[in-house]
């Protein structure tokens, strides 16, 4: 509006004068303009070349991994790789069943996601909507610093400190973590549950009595459950500290900064107007967070979660050092206290002997695993990209 009116003024002032003034101040000479054009083209093409180079690298990696993966499937077929649980690449005759290894990768990824997602999203909410700005400025960089710790350091911690701790005090660690995590959750459930059940009673006094009785009964029940499960957990003796649980916990720490950072950005992107609109309608802060901000930021949070999970899936050093590397499906299948072997650790561990000169299937099977990992991360990246695009559309009101 302002700009157009200014322009109008200029034109009104009389064209002769205005153009003359402009030509001396703004219009550059032909030579200079040509030079500018050349530098612009040069700069743009340099940037384009660099961008293209990065894209080409990705394609090259895909091509070379696939090129060395295909011979494996030509030699051994698909069936053994995806359905056999026996992994004996060095034996005579070799067996290349990767199912238990794929399962191991899945297990630690799911385990770390179960820990990292609730923690990460909660931390992101806390950072963006609960903590005052001045505190947030200090806390966020500290969380992001987690990402800067080299994975070897995490692995060393997992192997040398955490694993023996799990072996020696595993039962009590499990008991205390159960109590710490379950107590607030169960308390919340009891309070909300008692409120919900008693709200059907119309008479005011009888409702209050019923509520109290319910609280006492459910509280006693919950306490019993808490104690029983706690002691049951304490009696568990952890055979080996280098197990799926250990790795899941460490991996979740490694995935946390990604999840927190991306989710927090998504929450911030929701904007003041939505928040203030919600408050204006009389919503409390909790209601605003749960009913307005979280749904609006959900796809951004999901994108962060996927990125964090990919970090856990692709991590090599920690799992190689601390998962125990047993190529088997634990018994029973959900036993997180048994050691597992993952795709990444297998590639790292078996690479040495698997030479293209000596063992062909044994060499190519590692590329088959690499290709599998690449495909998984490609698909997840694609999905998270689509989600982010969708969120942008939603937020821009389309």
């Amino acid at each position: 509006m302002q700009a157009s009116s200014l322009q109008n003024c200029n034109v009104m002032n009389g064209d002769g004068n205005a153009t003359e003034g402009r030509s001396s101040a703004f219009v550059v000479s032909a030579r200079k303009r040509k030079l500018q054009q050349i530098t612009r083209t040069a700069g743009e093409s340099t940037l384009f070349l660099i961008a293209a180079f990065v894209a080409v690298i990705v394609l090259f990696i895909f091509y070379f991994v696939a090129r060395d993966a295909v011979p494996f499937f030509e030699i051994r077929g698909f069936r053994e790789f995806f359905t056999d649980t026996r992994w004996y690449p060095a034996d005579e005759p070799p067996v290349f069943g990767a199912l238990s290894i794929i399962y191991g990768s899945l297990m630690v990824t799911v385990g770390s996601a179960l820990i990292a997602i609730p923690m990460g999203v909660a931390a992101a909410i806390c950072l963006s909507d609960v903590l005052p700005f001045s505190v947030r400025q200090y806390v966020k960089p500290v969380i992001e610093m987690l990402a800067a710790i080299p994975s070897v350091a995490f692995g060393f911690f997992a192997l040398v400190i955490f694993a023996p701790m799990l072996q020696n005090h595993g039962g009590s660690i499990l008991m205390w973590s159960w109590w710490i995590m379950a107590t607030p959750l169960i308390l919340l459930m009891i309070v909300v549950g008692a409120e919900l059940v008693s709200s059907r009673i119309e008479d005011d006094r009888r409702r209050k009595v019923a509520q109290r009785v319910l609280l006492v009964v459910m509280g006693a029940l919950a306490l019993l459950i808490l104690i029983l499960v706690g002691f049951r957990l304490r009696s568990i003796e952890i055979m080996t500290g280098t197990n799926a649980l250990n790795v899941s916990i460490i991996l979740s720490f490694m995935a946390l900064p990604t999840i927190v950072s991306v989710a927090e950005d998504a929450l911030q992107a929701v904007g003041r107007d939505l928040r203030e609109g919600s408050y204006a309608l009389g919503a409390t802060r909790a209601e605003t967070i749960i009913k307005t901000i979280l749904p609006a930021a959900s796809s951004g949070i999901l994108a962060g979660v996927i990125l964090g999970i990919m970090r856990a899936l692709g991590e090599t050093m920690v799992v190689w050092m601390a998962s125990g590397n047993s190529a088997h499906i634990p018994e029973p299948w959900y036993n997180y206290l048994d050691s597992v072997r993952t795709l990444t650790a297998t590639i790292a561990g078996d690479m040495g002997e698997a030479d293209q000169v000596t063992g062909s299937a044994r060499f190519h099977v590692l590329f088959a695993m690499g290709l599998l990992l690449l495909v998984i991360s490609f698909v997840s990246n694609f999905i998270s990209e689509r989600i982010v695009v969708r969120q942008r559309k939603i937020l821009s009101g389309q």
Partner: protein
Amino acid sequence: MAKFRVTSLVVSAIFLLVSGGPAEAKNGIVIDGSTTVGPLAKSFAAYFTRSRGISVTVSESGSGNGAKSLINGTCDIATMSRSMKPEELAAARSKGIEPVAGVVALDGLAMVVNPANPVHSLTKQQIAAIYKGSVTNWRQVGGPNARILIVQRESNSGTQETFKELVVGKKVHIAASAETQASNGAVKNRISLTKGAIGFVGLGFIDSTVKKIAVDGVLPSPETVRNGTYPLSRPLFMVTAGTPKGRVQEFINLSATPVGKRMIKELGFVGTR
């Protein structure tokens, strides 16, 4: 361990760039291979650099990688804790390389358990049964009632291959529940921290954090390895492309000198002569 490998890879990569292939390097010796022979090669290297002023790069990436590097011409000496396989020999010959192996020392493969474990002797059959997974409790071999945690090495380890050859047999699968560690040190670490664990390491890696056990009634020691009574022993090789010449020959022959013999002894290996 793996960090070592990365550093050594970087070092050798830089070396490659600088010298255009270490095999024809004018100013140094490049060594790659077994993590068991690694410490020996390193102390030889330190002595060699000090006394001759010739730089020696030592990488520990496993016997298989050592052989690979030798075949690809990226190292002068491959340290190996097993002899070359027929396929590796064939691959070397197809590239016009005739590998020559020299025994620099002997190594006993020691079975180790946690110091808290009362078991002090096992037969070879019992060890094989444990690793095959048919014996799963220490009670079955005269120990306390506790599950056995098997620790093995990655398949690229010469120690692992020697163990399979000497104890369980090449065609037998080791139990899938066996934990896999990447180096002698990592195995020792796991054993020292885990009560029910059993594993195997080179004789040079034994210290007070783990307890060695007698195999077929014979405890591993330099004497029992040299006189051949200890059943799990093996020669350690330094392999070169063709007969070693010049400074490479000088380096390998260190093992026969008094200084070399002292270093071999200090590292817990056994000299050949």
